[in-house]
């Protein structure tokens, strides 16, 4: 499903957080969003999901402005995993994933066998099926992240918006999550911190000071000059002899 943003902006009071961002995500594409801390990545993701009011500009979902769609319509198409998810309710892992079915259910279409199967699939996809009966409160940060991703998968979205999904995950789960996301037949927009992982995206958009300063294939976007000016690191491109992939090594000269 195609997602478009036209001169998108949002301000916290008088301080602009995101300004004049226009981008287009093609169906099935994986777009990585990178940028230093406070560059507006999370806000841009929330704008794309239609979760912030008082925005300027428009977001188009398959050509239709988000503002013309109901929350329910949007939730059937876009699933969001935010960085922080906390609850004081004594929910079980399975309860949390079942929340993902919310946009598909109504009084006339209650939770049924098909929903149960979708929830089980989602739990299996993130390797949490054996913990379905555990309490959310007892999970580690990484386990919570995977459960939230399972919840998003249970929404059966066409577009998945992820805010630093590999945070809190150990290296094995980071890589398996990125592979899972890459293999999903959906459009993905995700903020990433690890620039080596960002190399795996179809395209990268670079945020700096609330503006999008570059957007294109990872090889073009992650030039050493740009890494120096925006991320303030000196990067060296290395080649992995095993598969000829590009890897970065970073050095920081300033304190």
């Amino acid at each position, binding site marked *: 499903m195609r997602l478009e943003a036209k001169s998108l902006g949002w301000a916290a009071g008088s301080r602009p957080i995101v300004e004049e961002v226009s981008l287009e995500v093609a169906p099935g594409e994986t777009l990585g969003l990178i940028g230093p801390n406070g560059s507006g990545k999370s806000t841009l993701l*929330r704008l794309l*999901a239609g*979760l912030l009011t008082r925005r300027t500009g428009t977001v188009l979902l398959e050509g239709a402005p988000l503002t013309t769609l*109901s*929350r*329910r*319509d*949007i*939730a*059937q198409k*876009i*699933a*969001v995993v*935010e960085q922080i*998810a*906390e*609850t*004081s*309710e*004594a*929910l*079980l892992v*399975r*309860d*949390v994933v079942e*929340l*993902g079915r*919310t*946009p598909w*259910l109504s*009084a006339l279409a209650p939770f049924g066998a098909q929903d*149960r199967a979708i929830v*089980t699939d989602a739990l299996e996809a993130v390797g949490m*099926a*054996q913990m*379905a*009966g555990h309490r959310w*409160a007892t999970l580690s940060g990484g386990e919570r992240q995977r459960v939230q991703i399972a919840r998003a998968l249970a*929404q059966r979205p066409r577009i998945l918006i992820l805010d630093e999904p590999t945070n809190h995950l150990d290296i094995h789960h980071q890589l398996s999550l990125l592979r899972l996301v890459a293999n999903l037949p959906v459009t993905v927009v995700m903020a990433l911190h690890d620039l080596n992982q960002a190399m795996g995206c179809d395209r990268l958009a670079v945020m700096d000071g609330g503006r999008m300063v570059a957007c294109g294939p990872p090889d073009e976007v992650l030039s050493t000059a740009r890494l120096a000016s925006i991320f303030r690191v000196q990067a060296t491109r290395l080649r992995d002899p095993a598969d000829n992939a590009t890897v970065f090594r970073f050095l920081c000269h300033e304190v």
Partner: protein
Amino acid sequence: MSDLAAPRVTGRTHGLWVAQGAAILILAVLGGVVIGETPLPLATVAAVFANNIWDAGLIVDPIDAGIIWSYRLPRTLLAAACGAGLALSGVVLQALVRNALADPYLLGVSAGAGAGAVAVTILGVGGGLLGISGGAFVGATLAFAVVAMLARAAGGGSAQLVLAGIAGSQLFNALTSFLIAKSANAEQARGIMFWLLGNLSGVRWLDVVLAAPVTAVGFLICLWFARAMDAFSFGVSSAASLGIAVRRVQIMLIGAVTLMTATMVSLVGSIGFVGLVIPHAMRFVVGPRHARLVPASALAGAVFLIVADIASRMLIPGQVVPIGVVTALVGAPGFALILVRNRRWS
């Protein structure tokens, strides 16, 4: 491994739950009618019911008949409606503001309803039963708006909301006291003070006819939005991303709470702790999912207030203890328990 999860409610077990709930409620109501200073045998109660419902024409002592049909039954039914309404209000507020301590009493809604009702009583705006309920509704809405805005202005956190609720309660309680001191005569003041503590004396059928539909509508609204309340578990933004029309759901549910609280306060005064303690107790029993928490809390609230009313009539022979005092005597230790439990969790 889905069998690890909580047992699913199938159609048949669903029916069983409803039947059990109805049986418990009927038993409690019967208890409320039978137990009292003059214990009345079940046979007499049955005869009075038969006479009034089917015109059976059985011979019953008219005094007994009066106690049962005009005094204890409406009183017990009103207790049930109030208990259910207050417990539902607690469920909704705890879900929406995501604070374990939220209930209409703590968030100032009850105080606002009390102030509104007293304003109408003393200043004579409108007058009559609906006038008092209307005043209570306006007061409750106003109080919730003040508390919500104050909490928002203070940063919108969970702690801020409780603090704003306390400030709001104090403000509206002070307003009530001010109105009483300024305008009421001694007789009126005593009556209002007693009523504010929660009181089911002098309940008439008209009160039941007003309260029962309000609770029923509130219950249906809560049940309708049960899934939406689940979606608020991870906060407002998460609820929105799950397809919940946040503003509309909030308005509907807060409206239901305000209506229920205002009606109950205008009829029986402000009864604390039911809305706070019952939902938490029920979370232990049926879990946090609202499809079960809503009916369980409504039932438990109804039964709890019926029992509290029986206690209020029986504690001191020949005298009625305000029911708010009874619920607070049970509720305060329950409240303490929640605090201790929460500390262990965090």
